[in-house]
């Protein structure tokens, strides 16, 4: 496969995703759909529970910002707080 664009990646996701990662069950709650759309473009979402629960809101904000600024994730600015809220509530340090 050659490198493709974010849009193509989204369209191809059901094919590109390994069958085995379908067993990952993220916790239900507002923002879960945004996480599924944006994070799963480049990696399986087991990265999220794997890194829990030890990050606080600032920690998860740092992770999301790294994905945008360093890794080039095309996450719209208005979705960022929704994603950070979801991660903090369900996978954050209590």
């Amino acid at each position, binding site marked *: 496969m050659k490198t493709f664009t974010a849009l193509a990646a989204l369209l191809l996701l059901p094919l590109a995703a390994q069958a*085995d990662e379908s067993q990952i069950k993220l916790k239900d709650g507002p923002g879960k759909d945004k996480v599924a759309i944006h994070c799963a473009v*480049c990696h399986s979402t*087991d990265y999220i529970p*794997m*890194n829990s*629960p030890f990050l606080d809101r600032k920690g998860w904000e740092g*992770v999301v910002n790294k994905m945008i600024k360093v890794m*080039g994730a095309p996450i719209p600015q208005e979705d960022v707080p929704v994603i950070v809220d979801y991660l903090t509530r369900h*996978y954050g340090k209590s």
Partner: protein
Amino acid sequence: MTTRREFLTRGLALGAAGLWLPQGRAEGLFDIPVPTLPPGDVEQSVMATLPGKRPLIKRTWRPANFETPVALFDRSDFTPNDAFFVRWHLADLPEANDPRLAETNYVLKIGGDAVENPLSLSLPQLKREFEQVELVAVCQCSGNRRGLVQPHVAGVEWGYGAMGQARWRGVRLRDVLNRARLRKEALEVVYDGLDRPVLEKTPDFIKSLPVWKALDENTLLAWEMNGEPLPYHNGYPLRLVVPGWTATYWVKMISEINVVSKPYDGFWMKTAYRVPMGKFPVTDRFISQEVPGGPNTPITEMVVNSLITNLEPNQKIRAGQWTEVRGIAWDGGRGIRLVEVSTDGGRSWQPAELGRDLGNFAWRSWSYRFKPRKGRYGILAKATNAAGSTQTFQWIANPAGYHHNVIQRIDVEAV
């Protein structure tokens, strides 16, 4: 668990009374916290099978990050290829049947502004036209044991098994670079594999070595491990082997090498895989990647480490019978000189018997026998290398969670 302060207080009180702790107590001089992986990591970690592999500990599915169970390091100096750990940074890999990976098509390009004679080599050419060499070396992820550091640090939450040992076969990178004829300005050797990011904006996984390390006689372009072609997930058909240095430099499916006259400033060198300056007893410096007065430096050689391979926490052992404690010890290439074992929580130490010596870049197996009485025993192991470096009792904190070489403690019960 007794805190250090409680222990010290009690120790002082006991000392004042002219008493000392009874023999065989698990509490010792060294209050090493019991390492625990993040709960979410434990929950996600299932045994799963990648193509060409036996069931391994799955940390993440995509990119695939799979860990070797510790029991597979016990009494085995060569980690089986199908059990060797898997670590990818980027999810866009060539399919296993991609024509570019075929032996007859695979091409390694060597270029850059600091070579006089850019060239392309096929695999048959590499195998035919250069001297073939073999060596045994540990391949260990920089972040091996990251999951055990406290407080936890974000990343792949590895336990003890992001490592393995193999007999690698290939040609010296030095011989290949010599054919490309390095100019005197050559500073770094920059290299890339066929793994690619999913998004164009994500930094490709490109690494560099200082020229001195690239020209080291032990740095290899390898196509074989343990007498077999590299498994797909360990870099088929060709990977770099950088003995002594952490696996971040051992780029898989290596396809392009550029020798350059300026420091390479890509993300995976300039920002990632860095450790704080001056905190580790590192002697292999990568000076062209340092900024004078800067806070950090690229991770380079592995720190001295050891692993107990035949005991599990709270295991029951037989009182009155000889019990063997076994494990492995390794470092960044000086060679292991001594492994000491404590069975009383760190109060006293005895030298272990060292197993066969497979070279300075290999781990050294070791074993120690003792006859326990009934009670709990705190078993510790500590390795020392030929330079006198040893392991730490407390993790040397660094932001990315590297270089965990805290002395392991396993409490067992003799019944």
